[in-house]
């Protein structure tokens, strides 16, 4: 009777080279001196880091603005100025040389105390490629930070909804380092491709899902000047790109040679066909009301404060906002529509065979797309980067540095867009942890037989409404004002209700129900 033979031979230990040794040494030393500092007051570090990035982004836009206004406009007046041409190879066409910048600056109000160093710093700022590299770097950073912290936040919100704490241990204050730690753990996991799977397709699928959500960030405006590429068809571009994400999911399901993944892929295909049209039609309604497809154009219409927002401009846009939100849940495979990766039926749907870094790529794509969808919703329906206070109130502040900072915070700036999209994200998190999952035929029924006709009616209604309001007769403008007031107050009631419930919950929060026995039971 033989002891059962071990078919698996352990792989030979891999002789790690110079590079990996250096990386390990670096990591250990960083951990050595950083750990005591971070573990003492992690919360303060985290919050100051967030504030620092916000101020950094703002200062970067101020610098670029200053260079544009002060240097380049002034330089155009100089006779021998040649605009920085695109071909980087010939130095002669490199635009303003440092000496020219110095000359311009000397007679400017900027103190001449800083010698030539500033000229060399300012010189590259005038080229478009430098700006795009900085912009792309910022987008890559945002694209990485958002999923990491939305995942952590979702686990905290889920904990709170389920009367538990959520991650509390990693990194100290409320487990803020939980997702980065998970990320590192996932990178270290074994790079597994199942036998019989279609190797190249299996490896390609995660990238086909993550690139579209990255592309969507290109045309997404975060503020009046904070946009990498100002497209006049930004809305259609983002919808098209997010639509392309489905191909990656279907390939992932198909290539992993697992029946459950195939089911996941088929469900994703059905769901995609059913939600794509209602979502597009729902976004068409505000476009009809405003008249342009460019997101900046749509946002500029909504500067007049809370009641000027499109969601409250007419009943059709209000209903379109709700329809869009529901259809976007289906597009993100979340909450009641999370059939493609249904844990209880399909084990894990199309990601069953994925593990480690590839698996985390899928979830990067999902959470990034979630943020893009919420950002579009807040730009198109909820006034984008304009605050509830009408912009006209902030007119008198002038345009000094402090004044621009104040208007950015109070009246219109990227902070407001982040507030709104993060709030919509918060709503999506509630839905996931309270609602059960619906069946695939109910998804098709709700999207095709309910949402589609509804959005068609809304589009028709919006056309009639805009046609009527072009006549600008007195009666109609009073009707419009009335609807804005009514719908705006409905919105206020919702927000007030939310704050009241949150306050009530906070006021009545009870100590976490402890262990009954240990409290009183003698001798136990």
């Amino acid at each position, binding site marked *: *009777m033989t*002891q*059962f033979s071990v078919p698996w031979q352990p792989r030979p230990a891999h002789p790690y080279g110079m590079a990996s040794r250096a990386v390990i040494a670096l990591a250990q030393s960083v951990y050595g001196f950083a750990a005591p500092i971070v573990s003492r007051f992690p919360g303060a570090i985290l919050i100051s880091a967030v504030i620092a990035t916000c101020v950094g982004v703002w200062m970067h836009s101020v610098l670029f603005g200053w260079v544009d206004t002060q240097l380049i406009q002034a330089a155009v007046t100089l006779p021998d100025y040649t605009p920085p041409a695109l071909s980087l190879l010939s130095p002669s066409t490199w635009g303003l040389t440092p000496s020219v910048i110095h000359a311009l600056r000397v007679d400017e109000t900027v103190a001449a105390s800083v010698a030539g160093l500033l000229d060399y710093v300012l010189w590259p700022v005038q080229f478009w490629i430098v700006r795009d590299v900085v912009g792309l770097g910022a987008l890559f950073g945002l694209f990485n930070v958002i999923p990491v912290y939305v995942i952590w936040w979702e686990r905290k919100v889920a904990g709170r909804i389920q009367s538990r704490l959520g991650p509390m241990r990693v990194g100290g204050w409320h487990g803020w380092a939980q997702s980065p730690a998970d990320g590192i753990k996932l990178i270290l996991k074994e790079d597994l491709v199942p036998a019989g799977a279609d190797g190249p397709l299996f490896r390609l699928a995660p990238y086909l899902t993550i690139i579209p959500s990255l592309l969507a960030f290109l045309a997404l405006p975060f503020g009046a000047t904070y946009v990498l590429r100002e497209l006049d068809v930004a809305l259609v571009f983002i919808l098209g790109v997010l639509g392309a994400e489905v191909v990656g999911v279907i390939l992932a399901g198909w290539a992993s040679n697992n029946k459950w993944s195939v089911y996941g892929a088929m469900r994703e295909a059905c769901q995609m066909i059913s939600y794509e049209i209602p979502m597009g039609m729902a976004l068409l309604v505000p476009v009809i009301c405003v008249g342009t497809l460019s997101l900046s154009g749509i946002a500029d219409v909504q500067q007049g404060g809370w009641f000027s927002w499109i969601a409250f401009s007419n009943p059709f846009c209000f209903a379109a906002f709700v329809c869009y939100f529901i259809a976007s849940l289906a597009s993100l495979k979340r909450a009641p529509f999370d059939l493609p990766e249904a844990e209880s039926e399909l084990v894990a749907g199309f990601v069953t065979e994925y593990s480690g870094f590839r698996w985390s790529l899928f979830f990067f794509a999902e959470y990034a797309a979630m943020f893009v969808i919420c950002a579009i919703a807040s730009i198109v329906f909820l006034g984008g980067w304009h605050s509830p206070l009408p912009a006209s109130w902030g007119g008198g502040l002038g345009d000094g540095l402090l004044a621009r900072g104040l208007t950015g915070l109070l009246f219109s700036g990227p902070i407001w867009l982040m507030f709104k999209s993060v709030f919509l994200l918060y709503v999506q998190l509630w839905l996931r942890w309270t609602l059960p999952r619906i069946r695939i035929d109910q998804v098709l029924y709700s999207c095709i037989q309910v949402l589609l006709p509804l959005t068609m009616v809304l589009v028709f209604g919006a056309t009639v409404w805009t046609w009527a309001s072009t006549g600008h007769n007195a009666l109609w403008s009073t009707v419009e004002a009335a609807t804005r007031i009514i719908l705006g107050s409905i919105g206020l009631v919702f927000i007030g209700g939310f704050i009241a419930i949150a306050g009530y919950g906070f006021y009545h929060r009870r100590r976490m129900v402890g262990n009954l026995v240990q409290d009183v039971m003698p001798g136990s």
Partner: protein
Amino acid sequence: MAPEEICKLLTTEFTDAIVKTVVEGAHPYVQVSPDRWPDVARFLCDDSRLGMNLLRSISALDLLSDDRLACVYDLMRIVVDRPDVLITETHEFAIRVETDRNEPVIPSVADVWPAADWHEREAYDLMGIRFTDHPDLRRILCPDDWEGYPLRKDYEFPLEYHGIPATTEYELPNPRH
């Protein structure tokens, strides 16, 4: 109905099929000969006075001393005349069917009570009683290629299964675990 009346009713109906009736003790039962057992079962289930429509369990016994295998069918009556009323009275009864130990065959009653399907498969799997015209007689608990019937008294434990060593004590004549 009390167990005595049930015994009396069964003996009058199937005088030849009844081998033995035991009324005193904790478990009154009637022993039926295997070949007449399907008719008795049909009668027990459909007769209005008895109406034993719930087959609770089939326990397979190994009577090693007198070289026989037996199945004990425990039956119960759920009468649902008025749907919403709480049912408080019922009667329960047991039937025993014995067969020879070397080639044990008992006719299946899966068509009378569908609940018997899995119980009979378990009796076949653990005790080796073959049930004739059973819809799908396969092993239910043990793996399909398992030899021997574990619940028999004279069952000796396999020392390995597909190369996996069993952990019972080897040298003991009758290993207790």
